[in-house]
């Protein structure tokens, strides 16, 4: 309660009794947030006996801390810890970067250019692609199937002509963002089968591709709203000077959107860093990520809390460090999306 004392002495608009109420509430919630974290740290230094004999709270006071769990995870298991860690880092970084690249382009394109694809062409594309996929499942040669599909698509399109209803930018954007509504479990089995056919099961590539697709809607949504706040004049004058679309996008728009990019990147990174369901389905040994190795510490004799705590700490330290460094950006970036909705 030392904080309460300090506030009473510092000049503030709050009346003292209100300050006490506010600080009590703040400190209570801070304790609710921090105590579980403290408990993980303490548990990582405990021996099994310390856990099973009932709770002990303070290292050096009511138990002697031991480094056995840390030694086990980092020395004995060396490669079995390192591999999931490296997997997690690579998958999270690669998929977030990819999602940012693709999603930023799409968000910008949907805001600045007019797209009017024909509904018939889209449906035709979906139909032919389905036929191709079905053919490949029936073990038709991949090249033949794709080539046939392309031919079929072009042929039917030529026959149908170029008329018909078109789809606007808002429809495309709504469709992309609404992909977020899709429960992962509704698509995970076909994705599993698809990667199995491509022999990509249990590889980082499978996870990277999947996470990129899962995170794409958030990036499109946040970045489109961010770009909306960037003034058009700079881009227009660059266009008059003859800069290409890519050059305008790369040297003018992206630098102006850096804060939004940072926030979006961090958010997406955290999502893929922590993802569990897809990793559970799509990986088994080689491409396993950290959430799975935490869950793996739940052995037949009951969960091994001490090992688990070390792994949880290993997992949360990097993201927490980033969260502390970029706290302001996250708030701003998320708000932009929430305001425009």
């Amino acid at each position, binding site marked *: 309660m030392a904080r309460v004392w300090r*506030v009473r002495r510092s000049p*503030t*608009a*709050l009346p003292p009794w*209100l*300050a006490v109420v506010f600080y009590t509430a*703040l400190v209570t*919630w801070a304790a609710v*947030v921090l105590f*579980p974290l403290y*408990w*993980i740290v303490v548990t990582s230094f405990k021996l099994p006996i310390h856990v099973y004999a009932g*709770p002990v709270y303070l290292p050096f006071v009511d138990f002697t801390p031991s480094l056995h769990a840390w030694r086990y995870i980092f020395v004995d298991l060396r490669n079995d810890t390192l591999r999931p860690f490296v997997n997690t880092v690579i998958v999270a970084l690669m998929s977030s970067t990819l999602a940012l690249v693709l999603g930023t*382009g*799409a968000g910008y*394109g949907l*805001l*600045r*250019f*007019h*797209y*009017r694809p024909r509904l018939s062409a889209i449906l035709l594309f979906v139909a032919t*692609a389905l036929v191709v996929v079905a053919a490949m499942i029936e073990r038709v040669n991949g090249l033949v199937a794709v080539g046939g599909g392309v031919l079929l698509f072009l042929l039917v399109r030529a026959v149908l002509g170029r008329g018909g209803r078109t789809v606007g930018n808002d429809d*495309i954007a709504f469709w*992309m963002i609404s992909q977020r*509504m*899709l*429960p992962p*479990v*509704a*698509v995970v*089995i*076909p*994705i599993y089968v698809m990667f199995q056919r491509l022999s990509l099961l249990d590889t980082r590539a499978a996870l990277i*591709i999947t996470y990129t*697709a899962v995170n*794409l809607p958030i990036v*499109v949504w946040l970045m489109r709203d961010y770009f909306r706040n960037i003034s058009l004049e700079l881009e227009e004058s660059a*266009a008059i000077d003859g800069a290409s*679309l*890519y050059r305008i*996008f790369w040297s003018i728009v992206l630098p102006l959107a850096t804060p939004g990019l940072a926030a979006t990147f961090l958010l997406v990174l*955290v999502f893929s860093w*922590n993802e*569990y*369901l897809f990793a*559970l389905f799509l990986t088994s040994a080689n491409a396993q990520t950290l959430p799975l190795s*935490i*869950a793996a510490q*739940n052995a037949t004799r009951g969960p091994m809390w001490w090992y688990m705590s070390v792994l*949880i700490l290993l*997992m*949360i330290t990097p*993201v*927490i460090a980033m969260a502390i460094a970029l706290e302001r950006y*996250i708030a701003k970036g998320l*708000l932009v999306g*929430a*305001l425009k*909705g």
Partner: protein
Amino acid sequence: MSKAVDRPGAEEMPSAPGARRIKAGAGWGAARLRAADWPARQATTSFVLPAVLLLFFLSIFPLLVSAYLSLTRFQFVPGGFALRWVGLTNYGKLLVGIEQSHFLGVPKPPTVVGWLLFGLAASVLLAFVVRGITSASGRRGVVGRAVFAVVAGAGVWLAVRTLTPGGFPGTLLTTLTYVVVGITVQYWLGLWLAFLCAQEIAGRRFFRVVFLLPMMITPVGIAYTFRILMDLGKGPFAPLWRALGLAEVSWANYAWGARLVVMIGDIWQWTPFMFIVLLAALESLPTELIEAARVDGASRWQLFWRISWPQLIPVTSTLILIRLIEAFKIIDLPNVLTNGGPGTATESLTLHAFMAWRTLDIGGSAAVAYMLLFVVTFAALSYVNLFHRRLAEVA
């Protein structure tokens, strides 16, 4: 894919320079491209096409394949497996067949309280529809309201019948409970914390960083952490439980105890999301109104509820929409904390689908996933059409 403004009929429109700018929104690219050549037009397409294709291949096609799977039964045959077409059997099992008790729950005749609650809910929904008719918001609005009222009424009827003594709610209702309770608590808690952190007090930055942390932690880690925290015999609060004589019992054996722990974990993790956005919104509100009201002698309490909070309603509405969509996907917490138990008491729909998949009931798993998709889509669309549009226009 992209097109310049050269469609027939474009000439008839008044082409004042200003009108073009407004109509095109931010469409200088299109205007410039009217005379442009083929490669430049493809350039605009290249901005969107990769994202569209990726989403096609990783969500539309899998979704279609899932729809097909949900209509089949997976069987092992000599030399591999086969998918046998079974029509709507998998859905039938969930709604009226052997899986009904798992998905919908075990119904029992409602008690008097149940009847009263149902009557109350039914009259509220009826009033909602009647108001839609009298306020003349168009026929589509009324149809939307009626559909919503019927489905919501069915949901309440299900809740009333399965939540009575002897009844047992299924995974559908468990998931809805997680969503509704979770969002409600997270929102009010997040708002209260944002209000506190927006005050002029020392240590603000410390608190806002600390409050943000749970969002960053992997749900699996949170689940295990809560499992040990909530262990009545070995967790940190064991002396307290012993004093209360609860050390030998386990919440994991009681349906509502287990559900409560899952919800606590969810609230702990997602309150920061509400908090951080509401705080950013509070801090970006224009100060003139607040200053004026303060000069007029409004109390801190009045300032917040009469001036700040109404301006937060659009953000609130979007936040609820986001969490509504995300909260339905919960799986990590119940899977790790309770493994869905006791029985199936804490199973969410996603976990239900996962369990079915693990027993190689692929068709059943896909059917559950589709049910979840229907529920999420219905909830999100109803929310957007009936509430979000109106709330977002307030400010």
